[in-house]
């Protein structure tokens, strides 16, 4: 997905002379060609995230379209106030593309993990959020939104779906119909969810744009009163948004990152299994949910 991102941006820099890319000393090698061709508009600005976001706001004031790129916790959590004030409050547009997601850098430890990015960005009114599950979804998100006059966040992850559900309006998709339970998948854990639940009478809805979310799709479906959220970020992040769209007294459970520091290392696969993104855990959770009176 990182390769898709850099080649997509290379094209955008050529196509649209308003595009400026600021790298926080990350991804410099993959941008080397376009940096040589457009040294003024593709800049390795340094390791100074709060200033990088502030500088991007200044570029945006000048009518340029900034892309800011670094690892998720440094982009979102370290520079949060600049995202909130310089972009949110000031109503400026910009694109923020992170790598690392919740724990892609599994062996590097919690300093490089960011399961909280989506929850805190949801506190900034007007911030658009994408959690693409495929390279096409990432391309579609960027191409449709990079010049949308809003601050927009794109979360690149190592975890990917086989099935591409990109669409021109970045809507959600009803992947599977069913009546006993509704499973909402946000981004990259679709494969395991489908494999785990394929024979059950449940529905599966998929979203790669999280804010604003496709509310109509949730309202039109999700009538079972039993909902499982598959959240590849802090568990419960989407609960309040989703619950406001459900029938009253719906029961919501979530499989997502626990609200604690994951001090283990190992591979991303080991981390995902530890958290519960497994066919067994997903199936058992749904079966239990269906059985609830």
């Amino acid at each position, binding site marked *: 997905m990182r390769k898709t991102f850099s080649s997509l941006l290379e094209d955008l820099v050529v196509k649209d002379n308003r595009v400026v890319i600021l790298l926080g000393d990350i991804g410099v090698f993959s941008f080397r060609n376009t940096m040589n061709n457009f040294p003024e508009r593709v800049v390795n600005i*340094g390791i100074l995230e*709060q200033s990088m976001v*502030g500088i991007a706001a*200044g*570029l945006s004031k*000048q009518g340029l379209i900034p892309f800011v790129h670094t690892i998720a916790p440094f982009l979102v959590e370290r520079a949060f106030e600049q995202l909130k004030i310089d972009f949110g409050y000031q109503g400026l547009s910009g694109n923020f593309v992170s790598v690392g997601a919740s724990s892609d850098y599994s062996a590097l430890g919690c300093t490089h993990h960011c399961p909280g990015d989506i929850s805190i960005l949801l506190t900034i009114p007007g911030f658009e959020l994408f959690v693409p599950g495929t390279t096409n979804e990432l391309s579609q998100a960027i191409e449709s939104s990079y010049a949308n006059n809003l601050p927009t966040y794109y979360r690149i992850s190592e975890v990917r779906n086989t099935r591409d559900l990109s669409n021109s309006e970045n809507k959600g998709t009803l992947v599977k119909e069913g009546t006993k339970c509704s499973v909402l998948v946000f981004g990259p854990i679709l494969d395991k969810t489908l494999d785990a639940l394929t024979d059950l009478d449940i529905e599966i809805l998929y979203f790669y744009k999280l804010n604003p979310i496709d509310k109509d799709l949730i309202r039109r479906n999700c009538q079972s009163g039993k909902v499982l959220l598959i959240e590849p970020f802090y568990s419960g992040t989407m609960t309040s948004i989703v619950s406001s769209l459900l029938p009253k007294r719906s029961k919501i459970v979530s499989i997502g990152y626990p609200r604690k520091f994951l001090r283990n290392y190992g591979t991303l696969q080991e981390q995902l299994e530890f958290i519960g993104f497994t066919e067994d855990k997903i199936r058992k959770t749904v079966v239990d949910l269906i059985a609830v009176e």
Partner: protein
Amino acid sequence: MHEFEGTLKSLRKRIVLTSSIAGEGHIPTSFSILEILYSYYLAQKQAYGLLVQSPDHFILSKGHAAIGLYAVLEYFELIPSHWLEDFCKFDSPLGGHPDMKKVPFVEASTGSLGHGLPIGVGVSLGKKIQGKPGMTYVLVGDGELNEGSNWESLMVASHHKLSNLTVIVDWNGSTERALSLGNLSYKFKSFGVSVHEIDGHSVFDLCKYFEPPSEFHSSGPRVLLAKTTKGKGVKLMESSPNEWHHKIPSAEELDQILQEIE
């Protein structure tokens, strides 16, 4: 007495009275930068007449001095004269910190310190990329220089040789009680920028630096260390600037202040 001395007195009175009526506002910091603000807009008016035609940008990074900025914008007829009457009221465009979405000529919604200079560096970098003319001026407080974002973005400005950037430091010593800035001129010079120490209350001196350059002055950004006095013009505040930082004068104090300004 030069004509602008009378103007500056009336601006100080306007600030104190507005603040007293509203029960809000930071007076001493506004007095500290009043000549800087006045000189900037005076130079702009002389160079461009209608300021909307100016290619320059001015960012007040120390947003708590908003009331000083509003008074100057009002004087130069850049905002309606009745706006200050409603300073900090519920529906007022003018709050205790400036909102760029509500007030013309406000270039950044500041209030949280350390945001203005990175934004200004971005504006200057953007102009350079676009090949556009114009200087970006960013006014920061010396206390604000505690924020690391200033030094980070100064490194960027210096590295990218942003000769279209001028940083003005309101050097009134207000941070000394927390962190001493030491040799500030040396600190800035070590970042590779040109440094000019000036009298921050001298309109003549300031205007020299605010005249639009026919061509950019140097190979990189410049810093104006403007020596100022917090609460300038009112002994009550000059002698106890910390006490008066966010204080509203009583009726008795107000009389005393107005008399002194007169």
